[in-house]
């Protein structure tokens, strides 16, 4: 018995490890990397999470006026909490650009700042840069540049000159930008967006709400998000 006991222990541990791994992978929903090919979207399964979940939590207001693309009366209103230094947000950016082009006036997009400090060392500086550009009416332009060049600036030691370069490239008044980037107005906007995110239970980025209901992370690849938005336009949940 003593000679086979270690083998029994080993088999029990192996079974426990495989069993727990199998159980946990079944209970945690799969979240394919954004933008990669995943399962074909089914109109019935991932398409309607926004409609199937519970009551909408309105949350506290974010910064006003919010950064919005598209009309206020659009049947699908998407709100993204993003961090310019977060790689998945960078991957999600072209998907949202694509959705904006495809749905036009039927989709309203709002961007909320949710810099993950201290995980991302430059996230707050990037959020400030975007908000400072916003004070000169070029939030979305800076938003796009920051995401498109994410890999260029995220490894820099000092991102300020890089962002000032972007400001110049976008035709901003750079002296005003330099003042605004450290201003209370910019800090307050980021704070208000963060406060709204926390009130909605946001703890990571990108987190996306559609008509007030969170879109599961696994539904964010383009082919799935398209179906979610289409369903919301066909039968809005709110």
């Amino acid at each position, binding site marked *: 018995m*003593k*000679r086979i*006991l*270690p083998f029994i*222990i*080993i088999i029990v*541990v*192996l079974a426990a*490890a495989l069993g*727990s*791994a199998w159980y*946990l*992978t079944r209970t*945690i*929903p*799969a*979240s*394919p*990397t*954004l933008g990669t090919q995943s399962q074909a979207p089914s109109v019935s399964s991932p398409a309607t999470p926004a409609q199937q979940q519970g009551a909408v939590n309105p949350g506290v207001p974010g910064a006003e006026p919010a950064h919005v693309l598209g009309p206020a009366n659009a049947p699908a209103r998407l709100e993204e909490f993003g*961090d310019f230094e*977060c*790689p*998945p*947000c960078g991957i999600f950016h072209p998907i949202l650009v694509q959705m904006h082009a495809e749905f036009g006036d039927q989709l309203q997009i709002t961007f909320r700042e949710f810099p*993950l*400090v201290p*995980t*991302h060392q430059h996230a707050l500086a990037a959020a400030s840069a975007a908000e400072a550009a916003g004070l000169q009416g070029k939030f979305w332009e800076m938003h796009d540049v920051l995401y498109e060049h994410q890999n260029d600036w995220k*490894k820099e030691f000092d991102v300020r000159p890089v962002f000032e370069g972007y400001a110049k490239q976008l035709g901003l008044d750079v002296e005003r930008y330099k003042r605004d980037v450290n201003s209370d107005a910019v800090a307050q906007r980021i704070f208000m967006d963060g406060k709204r995110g926390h009130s909605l239970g946001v*703890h*990571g*980025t*990108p*987190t996306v709400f559609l008509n007030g209901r969170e879109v599961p*992370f*696994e539904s964010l690849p383009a082919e799935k998000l398209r179906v979610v938005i289409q369903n919301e336009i066909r039968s809005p949940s709110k």
Partner: protein
Amino acid sequence: MKKVYAVTALLSLLGLADALYLTIEHVTGESVRCTITSGCSEVLSSPYAVVAGIPLAVIGAAAYFTVFSLATLAAFGYRIAGTLLTPLVVAMFLVSLWLLYLQAFVIREFCQYCLFSAGITVALLVVSFVGAALRGRPSR
């Protein structure tokens, strides 16, 4: 000696649990989203997290399970298992050093679960050397 192998087996179980968690994170893609508390999304979504198509966490889990098996067998008197244990733990320690280097200087993000695994490997190395020293001591 039995105590040394028992401690090795327990440590490897902790490492196995950690590696299994990382495997599940990798497979489900939960690690892909950025969160406030973790740099794991950067580490686990980096190209270094996969070797020849196999997630590194799976390789880690297999290594910890092998250490557990060898330590258990050694504790029950299978001497060959005890002999194999030290080189395996040394190899795991060297791989851990390489992964720490990647996190510190290439990815420039640390994943706390990867750091925990590195800590377990260091502890395994220490215990393994203690075991080797005890084996080398003449029995009375």
